[in-house]
């Protein structure tokens, strides 16, 4: 049993291992995946077929932006935009450029959000998907710019805008420029809204800080995935401030639903149908207003 546990240790742990165990060599990495919640081990292939939701406990695994889009949009319909934007190092933080570069190579993305247009059950939409594998999904100048341009594209083409958020908040290495991306995306959203167009925010794990306190929270419709962590301030900061133990479910999607902050919590298996229905129910109005 101990050997098996070694095999399925998380990547973080295996990086620190000096000698790979003999057994580890015999099992190709990534063939099986262990659920961080219930510890159930599933064939990675089966997990992917199941929308990366644990078949035993329903835990929603993190998804990359590409996985999300593949599972959501009609096959082959996605056209990405602004893949050419590159982050700079405006405050000259040592090592920042290298970190961005490394995450770019790791994820195949130019930044922590993938934007573009595509078809959702035959309906045209503009979509932005944040990816927490890239600098924790944090928002710097490029993330702000890409989301802003996506919103503007939706405004120009009179299309619904849907965003999947996943972010630790503002990107510290870009200082106040990151903070200002909250305002930048907001002025673009206001224009989109003034055209009578639909904005749906889908909050996924985790959505906190400056992203939670800007576009993520102001969809015409806000929905979240089960158990997603959503909040303004970090749990530890709050515990230190208020000096009390916070409930187990604090800042989960279900907690927010209970407190009137969300329209719905939607299981990943129903996400495509739910979003497509929402878009469909807004089609006529959008046309009439246009």
């Amino acid at each position, binding site marked *: 049993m101990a050997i098996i546990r070694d095999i399925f240790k998380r990547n973080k742990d295996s990086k620190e291992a000096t000698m790979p165990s003999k057994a580890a060599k015999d099992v190709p990495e990534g063939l099986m995946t262990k659920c961080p919640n219930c510890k159930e081990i599933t064939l990675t292939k089966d997990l992917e077929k199941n929308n990366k939701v644990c078949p035993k406990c329903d835990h929603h695994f993190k998804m990359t932006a590409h996985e999300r889009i593949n599972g959501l949009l009609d096959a082959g319909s996605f056209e990405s935009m602004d893949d050419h*934007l590159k982050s700079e190092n405006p405050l000259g933080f040592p090592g920042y450029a290298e970190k961005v570069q490394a995450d770019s190579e790791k994820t195949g993305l130019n930044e922590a959000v993938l934007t573009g247009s595509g078809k959702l059950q035959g309906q045209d939409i503009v979509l932005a998907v944040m990816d927490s594998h890239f600098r924790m999904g944090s928002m710097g100048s490029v993330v702000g710019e890409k989301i802003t341009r996506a919103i503007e594209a939706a405004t120009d083409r009179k299309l619904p805008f849907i965003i999947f958020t996943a972010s630790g908040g503002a990107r*510290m290495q870009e200082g106040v420029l*990151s903070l200002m991306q909250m305002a930048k995306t907001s002025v673009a959203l206001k224009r989109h809204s003034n055209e009578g167009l639909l904005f749906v925010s889908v909050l996924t794990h985790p959505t906190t*800080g400056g992203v939670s306190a800007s576009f993520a929270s*102001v969809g015409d419709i806000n929905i979240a995935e089960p158990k997603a962590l959503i909040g303004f301030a970090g749990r530890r900061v709050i515990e230190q*401030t208020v000096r009390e133990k916070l409930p187990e479910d604090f800042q989960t999607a279900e907690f927010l639903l209970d407190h009137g*902050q969300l329209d719905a919590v939607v299981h990943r298996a129903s996400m495509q149908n739910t979003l497509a229905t929402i878009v469909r129910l807004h089609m006529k109005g959008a046309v009439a207003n246009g």
Partner: protein
Amino acid sequence: MPFEEPLIQLRAKISELKEYTATAEVDLSSEIKSLEDRFSKLEEEIYENMKPWDRVQVARHPERPTTLDYIPLIFNDFIEMHGDRLYGDDAAIVSGIASFHGQPVTIIGHQRGKDTKENVRRNFGMPHPEGYRKALRLMKQAEKFKRPIICLIDTKGAYPGKAAEERGQSEAIARNLVEMAGLEVPVLSIVIGEGGSGGALALGVGNQILMLENSTFSVISPEGAASILWKDSALAQTAAEAMKITAPDLLEMKIIEHMIPEVRGGAHHDPQKQASIISEAIRRSLEELNGMSGEELVDQRYRKFKSIGVFSE
């Protein structure tokens, strides 16, 4: 202030000498004169070369004038308005109507306390959602009556508490950002002390952002940045420089329109005079904005924020 230490020592020495001459039969007036000359030279040297960390200290000075100190010095006929009509009244934000050179205006500002008792009442100037919702209510009211909105920013940040999360701190801030974008009246945001993160920005989507010379505007406090970046909050001083959070920094990055000079040593040295400098800055900015139509104001604000960001393509 630690950086003022040499001045304090020299001042003490001068008054010591003065006292001595008053009682003893010696004439030390030439020595006193030369020390006083040295004092003013040193004063100039210290105050003209303030480091970012010095400015952080001044911005946080307990005696630094607050929103409620400035209001009677800058405006007439101020009437405070309370409550968000949804939950409660947040004392960490004050708001109301007043007249500025005969023009009705709406004023909204963070309010911290100057002593412990007042700070407890004002929650150290850290608002809950109801504070931001009160601010938005007053902004919409200003829009209805076509009067300019003047926001005074002075907060460490929105309050990180359990109740704040339950009542939607994120949504309250986010809503203000979006709604401020659409206001068809002039919006002037002035950072008078600390401009801490989203909690400051929620009053910051103005046609112009002005900052007092010794105020700061940042995504995170220097202490917070140091503890995250270098796992050591004692490096706050280094972080204050690296994060570029002072008024001169933001002016250079073209995020703010104007820097408002401060009286020597910081606003707390002469609140009255400081108020008149701020008043003049407000007059000048409103003059620029008053002539614009609602549509032009929305458009100008849109273009201002859309242009912020550094990247290559």
